[in-house]
């Protein structure tokens, strides 16, 4: 099991100019750990991160899009795996922060927590490559391969809460930041 913030810090050390879509706790944390105008946190409804990321990936096939999704979130939009597999964007990396619970909503366990293999869903849906990673060292070692892999790629990351970061919901949904994102992406 990895601390989520340590996992994100390892990613941040490798990050170049990728678009990052993040939801819930990962969204709060990424704005502190890897601040960038290309952080997209304007997801608006639970479960929708993977689908926003698909729109971005289809609209900008020249840019790598990395989504840090949640397991509770993905269960709300499981069909998106099939949609993504069908569209097969080569620039799409779907990282699932798997903590087995609805952490933001009181850490209530997911239904059938611990018995779901999300990588099997992704494989069946048509993702080209899947990974299951539970150790920080393995994540650090495999990151270059994952980021260079032709997508769609799915990575199940077994995580637990790490350090607490200040929550800033207005930042996540700010129209000003969304417009900055659009402008930065247009120039990028």
């Amino acid at each position, binding site marked *: 099991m990895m601390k989520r913030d340590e996992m994100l810090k390892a990613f941040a050390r490798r990050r170049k100019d990728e678009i990052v879509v993040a939801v819930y706790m990962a969204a709060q944390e990424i704005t502190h750990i890897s601040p960038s105008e290309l952080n997209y946190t304007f997801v608006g409804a639970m479960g929708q991160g993977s689908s*926003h990321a698909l729109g971005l990936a*289809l609209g900008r096939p020249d840019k790598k899009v990395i989504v840090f999704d949640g397991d509770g979130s993905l269960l709300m939009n499981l069909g998106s795996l099939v949609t993504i597999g069908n569209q097969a964007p080569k620039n799409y990396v779907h990282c699932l922060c798997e903590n087995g619970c609805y952490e933001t909503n009181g850490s209530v366990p997911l239904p059938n927590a611990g018995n779901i293999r999300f990588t099997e869903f992704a494989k069946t849906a048509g993702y080209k490559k899947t990974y299951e990673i539970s150790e920080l060292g393995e994540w650090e070692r495999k990151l270059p391969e994952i980021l260079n892999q032709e997508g769609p790629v799915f990575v199940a990351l077994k995580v637990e809460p790490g350090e607490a970061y200040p929550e800033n919901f207005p930042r996540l949904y700010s129209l000003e930041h969304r417009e900055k994102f659009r402008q930065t992406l247009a120039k990028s």
Partner: protein
Amino acid sequence: MADYPLTAAAIKNEFKRAGIHFVVALPDRVTSHHLLKGLLADPDYKVVQVCKEDEGVSICSGLYAAGHKSVLMMQYTGFLDSINSIRGIAVEGKFPVCIIVGLLGKEPDVAPAQSKKYGVKIIEPICDVMGIEHHLIERDADTPKIYSAIEKSFASSSPSAILIGREPR
């Protein structure tokens, strides 16, 4: 076909006029046979087929953030099913999501609010309470409203609903 009131070609023409390349869609019984299948076969359009309508709200939003215009096609049942995403993303999040909604079961030339079909009758009031502009399309003569609605949505960064009141052929 000459005297049939609404054609798929007229609707497609409006999409083209508005600069739409991406069409995000779930099959809707009102529009799937002539309009959606026509779009799927047309290389000028990239149709992204989704498994559930709320995915489409988000995909259109991601496309907008990446600099593209798109439309989202669904049946009114899907509109009702994706209300929370429309609320959170398109209305509160101010993403210009243009939704083409097939009013399955609406009686020809009857106003949606007067329909005997409950699900059809409640669509316009729901749009009104959510502040979503809506336009009824029943005849080719109505179709220029599609271009205007798309233009206005993208200019004002707000959603719109284009209600298809009969099967386009």
